[in-house]
């Protein structure tokens, strides 16, 4: 205990003295000169230390948050395209009554795959991926906390996604919906391995998401640049932080429920068997306890995108920083209290229904606060109509509409009529596509220059926006009416006498338009990546720290970590900006700061590239998939997993130049001496 106190004291004295230096303006012309003289040599060494060497093997070993983030984004986007294609096929099937493009078995697999892909393989991962790429840059640090965990997170997510699609093409695609209600998904009514594959996929993605959340939280708490106290954290990072906490408390519910389901199916437990004391509704409670926060897990990062984009393009700080932060946190909390509104039709006690009605309506309040603050920002700012802002305006239109139809459904009587109809399909596509995908596309346009160094084409961008916006409303607006006319969800066809044909045809046409819109985006991205206008460090004149480094950022992110002087870091920056010096360039050193006020506290050498995260992910994949077929897989998988984990954590060789200071240097005596000297 004493040792720790000593160290703490020591640190305080050191930083204290340095701050004095900084504030009293001891950074003279000489210091500036010295910095620029050192630069070339230091950059070269930093590059050597941080960059990945070429070759496939080193590509697999990479622990750079930017590489991982980009891979994550690209992979998630590919899954988005696959999920979108499945949706298009469904729309084609539904375009006419009694269409025979798909049979019921195919349709059921496809709609399940669509939902599962969009939720578990696209929406959560892409949001986490944006965080993995951007959070360390925005916080002004050199890598994410736990970089090997980040690599592991990506690999296990990739293996999970591939597994699901391989099995889908083998006709073992899950067919019980992305919600897998028991008993339909239980052992009696879903024979074969389809649902087992689904519940194992849940394991893959939840592990990936949980790992990413832990990284983001630790990064946000400990790796912020000096000066970025809690009240200066960018709204984007707040959003990621709230999302990460929600993941941590929501995902275990689906982890547990999918464990129960797996056990029921594979070893014959009775969690959901009502004849032996189980209860099918237990599944629904557990699933929606995850499933509803899940919606906000997807939506809250989008709030971060919107905040960043609005701030930059209305050329003023967001109106109501504190209100926005608090409303995000409030959304995070209330999001856990609504799950039962997915279960009103199960006939719960009236009192419970009332409670959840009230809670559901209450969540409209923080959303309202957010919308009003942003409108106020635009009102008093000078909006510049670049593509990212267009997508955000699209977000307003669509999300507000979807939010309002959500408020209607909070009411039990209305909910009982529209639940599980196309009205609900319309509603949640309005909130999820409007609330998350539109901001995400805006974010792609906004940060593409940072990630690639080139701008996305504006003209194509506007076409992309227009087609997506029109296509979206054409597809989903008629679904409100279909729902009101009584068309239930998850039907592979309908009878001609129902009169649903025309609106369905319209929706399908809209789906085609949307497809063209997305195709334009792909074209734009592919073309701009090579030929787009060169972006420069800060093409939008934005305020957050990721724009303080080159585009794309060097492997070490910042040659000197920035020191933050205001909430809008770059807008507040003075001409001779102070930076952090003294981090070793031959080591992967990062600076840890204090959680609240972000004063420098200690430094730490982050782990180097490693193949072991891939090994652990692979072993886990083998275990998960194998255990669907034989319990022995747990044994086969555990051994390589254990070996890989030990390899992952094993210390660097002793002769590593960068290795840690030996104990004797930190002996109590030496520390006391240093403390004396500092005084």
């Amino acid at each position, binding site marked *: *205990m004493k*040792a720790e106190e000593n*160290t*703490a004291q020591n640190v305080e004295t050191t930083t204290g003295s340095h701050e004095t*230096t*900084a504030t009293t303006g001891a950074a003279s012309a000489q*210091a*500036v000169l010295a*910095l620029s003289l050192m630069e070339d040599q230091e950059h070269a060494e930093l590059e050597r230390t941080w960059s990945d060497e070429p070759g496939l093997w080193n590509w697999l070993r990479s622990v750079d948050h930017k590489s991982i983030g980009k891979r994550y984004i690209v992979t998630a986007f590919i899954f988005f395209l696959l999920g979108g294609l499945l949706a298009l096929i469904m729309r084609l099937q539904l375009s006419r009554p009694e269409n025979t493009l798909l049979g019921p078995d195919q349709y059921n697999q496809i709609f399940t795959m669509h939902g599962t892909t969009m939720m578990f393989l696209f929406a959560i991962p892409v949001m986490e991926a944006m965080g993995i790429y951007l959070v360390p840059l925005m916080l002004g640090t050199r890598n994410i*906390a*736990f970089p090997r*965990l980040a690599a592991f997170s990506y690999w296990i997510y990739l293996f999970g996604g591939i597994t699901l699609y391989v099995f889908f093409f083998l006709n073992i695609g899950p067919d019980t919906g992305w919600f897998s209600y028991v008993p339909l998904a239980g052992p009696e009514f879903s024979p074969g391995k389809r649902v087992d594959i689904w519940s194992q996929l849940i394991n893959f993605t939840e592990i990936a998401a949980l790992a990413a*959340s*832990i*990284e983001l*939280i*630790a990064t946000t708490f*400990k*790796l912020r640049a000096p000066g970025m106290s809690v009240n200066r954290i960018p709204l984007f990072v707040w959003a990621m932080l709230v999302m990460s906490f929600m993941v*941590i*408390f929501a*995902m*275990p519910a689906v*982890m*547990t429920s999918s*464990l129960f389901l797996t*056990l029921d199916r594979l070893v*014959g*437990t*009775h*969690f959901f068997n009502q004849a*032996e*004391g189980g*209860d099918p509704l237990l599944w629904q409670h*557990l699933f929606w*306890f995850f499933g509803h926060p899940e919606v906000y897990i997807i939506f809250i990062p989008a709030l971060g995108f919107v905040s960043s984009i609005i701030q930059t393009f209305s050329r003023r700080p967001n109106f109501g920083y504190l209100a926005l932060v608090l409303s995000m946190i409030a959304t995070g909390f209330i999001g856990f209290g609504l799950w039962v509104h997915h279960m009103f039709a199960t006939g719960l006690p009236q009192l419970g229904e009332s409670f959840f009605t009230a809670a559901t309506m209450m969540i409209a309040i923080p959303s309202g606060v957010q919308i009003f603050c942003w409108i106020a920002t635009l009102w008093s700012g000078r909006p510049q109509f670049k593509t990212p802002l267009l997508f955000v305006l699209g977000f307003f239109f669509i999300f507000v509409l979807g939010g309002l139809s959500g408020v209607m459904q909070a009411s039990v009587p209305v909910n009982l009529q529209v639940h599980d109809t196309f009205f609900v399909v319309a509603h949640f596509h309005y909130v999820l596509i409007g609330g998350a995908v539109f901001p995400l596309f805006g974010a792609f346009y906004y940060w593409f220059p940072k990630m690639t160094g080139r701008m996305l084409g504006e003209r194509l961008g506007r076409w992309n926006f227009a087609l997506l916006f029109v296509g979206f409303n054409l597809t989903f607006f008629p679904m409100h009416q279909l729902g009101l006319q009584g068309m239930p969800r998850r039907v592979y066809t309908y009878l001609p006498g129902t009169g649903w044909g025309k609106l369905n045809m319209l929706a399908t046409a809209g789906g085609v338009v949307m497809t063209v819109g997305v195709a334009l985006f792909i074209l734009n991205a592919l073309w701009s990546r090579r030929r787009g206008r060169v972006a420069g460090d800060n093409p939008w004149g934005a305020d957050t720290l990721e724009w303080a480094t080159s585009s794309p950022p060097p492997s070490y992110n910042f040659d*000197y970590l920035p*020191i933050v002087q205001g909430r809008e870091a770059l807008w507040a920056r003075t*001409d*001779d*900006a102070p*930076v*952090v*010096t*003294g981090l*070793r360039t031959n080591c992967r050193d990062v*600076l840890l700061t204090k*959680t609240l006020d972000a004063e*420098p*506290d*200690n430094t*730490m*050498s982050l782990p180097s590239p490693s193949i072991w995260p891939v090994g652990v992910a692979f072993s886990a994949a083998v275990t998960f998939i194998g255990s669907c077929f034989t319990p022995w897989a747990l044994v086969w998988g555990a051994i390589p997993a254990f070996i890989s*984990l030990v390899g992952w*954590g094993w*210390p660097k060789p002793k002769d590593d130049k960068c*290795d*840690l200071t030996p*104990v004797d240097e*930190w002996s109590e005596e030496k520390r006391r001496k240093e403390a004396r000297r500092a005084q």
Partner: protein
Amino acid sequence: MKRRAGIDVSGLPQFAFGSRGLIWWGIWGFLAIETTMLLICLVSYFYLQDRATDWPPPPTQLPDLGIPTATLAVLLLSIVPMHLLERAAKRLDTRRTILWTFVCIALGIVFCVLRGFEFYSLNVLFDSNAYGSVVWTIIGVHSFHLVTEVLETCVIVSFLLSGHTEPKYFVDSTDNALYWYFIVAIWIPCYAVLYLAPRYL
């Protein structure tokens, strides 16, 4: 953009115990996840109990108390050497840290073995009824953590044994202690629910 040297951090310590370090936050993240998971298992237990007329459902007998209580006692006892280990590690005392780690591992092996017998004390099988399923799952999830934690302790002490005695590895030891405390602490409510609740509630 001109820049000037603002803060020189070369004199800062290269490691820190507890919340000043990075790993500590990661461990807390995992603890939050696993606590939530076990709590959800416990909530499921009560949910199923609420649906049942008799609990445990006949003809299932109540679980025995002997071995589970012994396991709990050993678990609680292991906190003492773990605390001593933590103190030694914070003093960067290699010899004592290794010594107490071995004591902890020995206790760990004892309660892993006891845990093996504890499954028999449940007096029910996982595929008998929903009660059996949920108690087996709770104890199974905890046992998984238990075994992992003992293995992890072995791995961490092997760092020290192989001559890696830099402060970083002492930080690892203290963070591992945090996990160990969690394993012990979380078992107390689980024990209460599995063995005491059906008797006294």
